[in-house]
């Protein structure tokens, strides 16, 4: 398994270019790099917004756009609440989905660990799959920590703006039946795009297949319990398949 790590050493910058200019350039570069990724997430954001628009408490559900900052966990929470799960089960499922952020954030220790307290707190708020992915790519290109942080900030600003706009638009369009119908087709495709890369990882295929099987088998169980069991089963079976007895990680 490959783990993305950020470089800890600051490369020596060219003397001719002012630091501010380099930081601005890195910020713009991050924003440019995130733009196509954000467009890719738009259908998912619109569908999440549609779910928010049809929830019993749209403002509360919408507030999760920034508070949770993760579409799959947010959608899971809203749908589990809507189908009558207890709030504790919905929160548990959402937190289990977002537990992967612990792994992503660990990869940011070299980048954000030495930063000042407020910068660290702000940087942590936008750690999510796309920012983690772009930061990993950027770290391979080298450069100073300041440049890498500026690149991360530019990417995060574009993603946050695009995501918030998409979710809000989806919430406003949620009452339009035709739009909801199109989005209902789009969301499984978005989720497939998220799941597919994971299936290439050691144990990933087993984890996904087990989760699918458990979800289907527990369809008649009380709301939310099937999803929680699917996640626990996927974690256990994926870990066993990946690095169980007699296997190497």
């Amino acid at each position, binding site marked *: 398994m490959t783990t993305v790590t950020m470089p800890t050493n600051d490369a020596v910058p060219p003397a001719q270019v002012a630091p501010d200019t380099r930081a601005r350039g890195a910020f713009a570069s991050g924003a440019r790099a995130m733009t196509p990724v954000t467009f890719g997430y738009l259908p998912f954001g619109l569908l999440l917004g549609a779910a928010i628009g049809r929830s019993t408490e749209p403002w509360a559900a919408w507030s999760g756009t920034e508070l949770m900052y993760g579409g799959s966990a947010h959608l899971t929470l809203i749908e589990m609440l809507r*189908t009558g799960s207890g709030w504790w089960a*919905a929160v548990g499922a959402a937190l289990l989905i977002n537990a992967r952020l612990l792994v992503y954030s660990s990869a940011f220790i070299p980048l954000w660990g030495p930063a000042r307290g407020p910068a660290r707190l702000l940087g942590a708020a936008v750690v999510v799959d796309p920012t983690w992915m772009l930061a990993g790519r950027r770290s391979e290109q080298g450069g100073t920590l300041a440049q890498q942080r500026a690149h991360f900030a530019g990417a995060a600003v574009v993603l946050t703006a695009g995501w918030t706009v998409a979710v809000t638009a989806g919430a406003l369009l949620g009452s339009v039946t035709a739009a909801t119908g199109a989005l209902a087709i789009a969301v*499984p495709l978005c989720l497939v795009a998220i799941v597919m890369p994971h299936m290439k990882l050691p144990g990933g295929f087993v984890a996904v297949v087990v989760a699918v099987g458990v979800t289907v088998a527990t369809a008649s169980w009380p709301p939310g319990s099937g999803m929680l069991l699917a996640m626990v089963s996927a974690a256990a079976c*994926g870990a066993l398949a990946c690095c169980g007895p007699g296997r190497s990680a």
Partner: protein
Amino acid sequence: MWCARVLWTGSISVTTWIAVLVAGLGSYAFRVAPLLLGNRLRLRERTQDILRHAGMGGIAALLVSSILGFGSTGGPAPSRPCWPRWSQPQLWPGAADR
């Protein structure tokens, strides 16, 4: 029973606010803990695998639910809803008819 569960868990609007806040705070804790604790929080490779598989298992479960329709998964639809059917929100078109 379903109505009783809604009543037992409290007002739906309050429940949604609480759920979003707790999930938001928990998610932020996952994000910020490694940056604040630094090298004191070193996740073993196996732990990282388990967390990744759990998260992806949840997304796969969400995918299956979205295909089957949320109205029919995660438990049977209530046979005797405690509020009119027209007032119940529905994300997936036709989900209530399945």
